[in-house]
């Protein structure tokens, strides 16, 4: 049954990149729609709006990060791919925080971003504050990233 180990591990890695990537894609897309509207009125706000648009994009990158660490841990990127079933399942679990929190936080952060873009459209001088609202949501993605990293690295050093 030890062949299944790597399947689960890879499934976890792929889901981390896949699900949070989807979330970020939707999120950045929402930001882009709102931003494009602002630019028609005032092209000079492009820089600020762009930053706000990109904020929900980080979850996808974190997902990529987890996927990459997992892939290199389980030896898919070269090395021996010898993963026991238990270890494979553990890797799978370790990837889940990033996958799920990444997805949902990207969506919620995108909504905060869109609202902040509206703020910047009317009051560009409040950019500093407007930026903080979406950044608050990101905290949870970062916490999930942290747990996923620690778990993946930790599972690698387990001897089961």
């Amino acid at each position, binding site marked *: 049954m030890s062949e299944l180990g790597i399947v689960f591990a890879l499934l976890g890695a792929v889901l981390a990149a896949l699900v949070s990537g989807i979330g970020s894609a939707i999120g950045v897309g929402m930001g882009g729609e709102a931003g494009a509207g602002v630019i028609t009125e005032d092209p000079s706000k492009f820089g600020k709006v762009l*930053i706000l648009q*990109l*904020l929900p*994009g*980080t979850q996808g*990158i*974190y997902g*990529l*990060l987890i996927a*990459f*660490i997992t892939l290199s841990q389980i030896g898919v*990127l070269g090395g021996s791919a010898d993963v026991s079933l238990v270890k494979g399942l553990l890797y799978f679990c370790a990837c889940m925080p990033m996958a799920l929190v990444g997805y949902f936080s990207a969506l919620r952060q995108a909504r905060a971003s869109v609202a902040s873009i509206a703020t910047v459209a009317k009051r560009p001088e409040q*950019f*500093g*504050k407007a*930026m*903080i609202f979406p*950044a*608050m949501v*990101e*905290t949870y993605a*970062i*916490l999930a*990233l*942290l747990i996923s*990293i*620690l778990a993946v*690295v930790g599972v690698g050093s387990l001897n089961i």
Partner: protein
Amino acid sequence: MAVLQMQHISICALKKDRKKILELLQRMEMIEICDVMKEDILFQKMDLSNSKTIFEKNVSIANNALEILCSYVKEDKSMLSSFSGRIVTPPEAYDSFRSKYEEVLKIAKDISACAKKIAEAKAEIIKLQEQLEMLKPWINLDIPIGFKGTKSTVVHIGILPNEWNEEQIYVELASCMPVHLEVISKSKEQTCVFVVCMKEVSDQVIENLRRIGFAKPSYSSKIEPAAYQAEINDMILELQQGMEGAKQSIIKMSERRDDIKFLADYDVMRAEKYEVIGHLLQTRNVFVLTGYIAEKDKSAVEDALNARFDIVISYDEVRDDEEVPVQLSNNAFSAPIESVIEAYSPPGKGEVDPTFAVSLFYYMLFGIMFSDAGYGAIMSIACAVILKKKKNMEQGIKKMLQMFFYCGIATVFWGIVFGSFFGDAVSVIATTFFNSDFTIPPLWFNPAIEPMRMLTFAMIIGIIHLFSGLLMKGMQLVRQKDIKGLFYDVISWYALLTGSILVLMSMQMFVDILGIDFVLPGVVGNIGAILALIGSAVIILTNGRESRSPFKRLLKGLYAFYGITGYLSDVLSYSRLLALGLATGVIGSVINKMAAMTGDGIVGIILFVIIFIAGHTLNIGINALGAYVHTNRLQYVEFFGKFYEGGGRSFSPFKVNTKYYKFKEKMNNE
């Protein structure tokens, strides 16, 4: 590191000097005008909103003209021109522009008129082309389309739906001969026909024709279609020539672009000046101007005014209950951070300027999150080059670039500490192309290999940052002479937090989690516990001190004590230092790995360079943004949360608020 002390300034001068004085003050940009005194019978305000409106209208005419010029004649702009800032111009240029004013305004209006002419011509041409299209099927008809007939014949010209040939139509008209008909043109959709018949059978003919769907053409004219077509073509040609002429004259007038820019700035300044004049109290010969001025600027203004005008200046201290505008002043290292503070909110009443404290941490936090020597070097060098090349930059952009310059230096530092140079580029290049295992070892440790150690380090940074925030609060309370508050709100928390840390550090389990190899002895833990208990007791007993009822006091105290969970989450929040730092490094490694997959032939090297440059550019962009946003967040939420509320109003002096030219008054000491 300070909020500048403000004072009220009142300037009383003769009305004949009014314009000159205001222009001087406008260029000096040191006074914020405000209304302090009330109007009375003698001193009254003037309503100048009319002239202000005229200036504003002229500004929009000039801007409109500039926009039109832009769409016809592109300005030569280099890539870095957005950093160039406004052109510095001596005040004399402003005075001498007066003579050119009317002429330039006329040019601006002419440009708008030309643009309008072009737009109208374009619309007209489209209309004419539609007519040409309509005329096309009739082009072989050699009589006018509106031709009705002769003395004894009637002519029917019109359209039948679908395709018909002559025989088919003759069949339809068989009952009312003699008839002559010609098909002018036909297509699948319609057939254009010309029918001549005797007057007597005309009604019958038309009836038969209608039965098969005959309709009159949608337009009528007294000239033959071919001639009409030629006429329309002539008109289009004429319009096109007109357009070309207007275009040429716009291009010719674009030589005066600089003058029009000057016009826009000139009237912006005048509008602003008139706005200020509206605030002045005036009698027949004298006017009084009141406003805020920073104490350090007093002598400069005084010297400049006294040298040229008969004038009385007096100062008043600001009242305690007044909302005084805030101007910050800091050393060169901290000043770039001022914009970060202002983006949050300038310090409110009784608050210290946090710029210096923020700047100490800002560069460091940014550096830890970006943490790559290569990226930091690129950022610093780019900022330095632009700063060096464009001396005349606007203040805001200059500060921003300076900030990123320092951030870049911090990034280089932390990159070396954590051994990251374009990710792991050095070892990847060494193994791919030189078959060696050369690496640059980190000065301290590699966070990707020892994440727990990095996490501990991040939290230690967090604790230091938060403790500094508490320290700032303490300083603020001392400044406000609230010694009780210092003890209850700051020292008690220090005791509680330090005590808790000591207790945790003496527990074997906790130390194991963090991966630190020493445990504090139990005695220290006990001392810590006592310290924490005293601290929490003080907090619970005193933090509800504004309430009267003892029960309520206790509840409020307990609630304040509950704030310890806030500290916990604050410290955990610094784990982003680890997460973002790892993100930079790992994505960099992914890029290097992808680039290295191309092998080490010539093609491999070329592909390597392309992937390397594109990938790392992307990574710099994404992670610089992340580091910037999250550095701000740590400052705004975690650090400011401890002591800073803001709520002040930025100092906005009466100034030259222009777009293209900058008028600088020569100071005596320059």
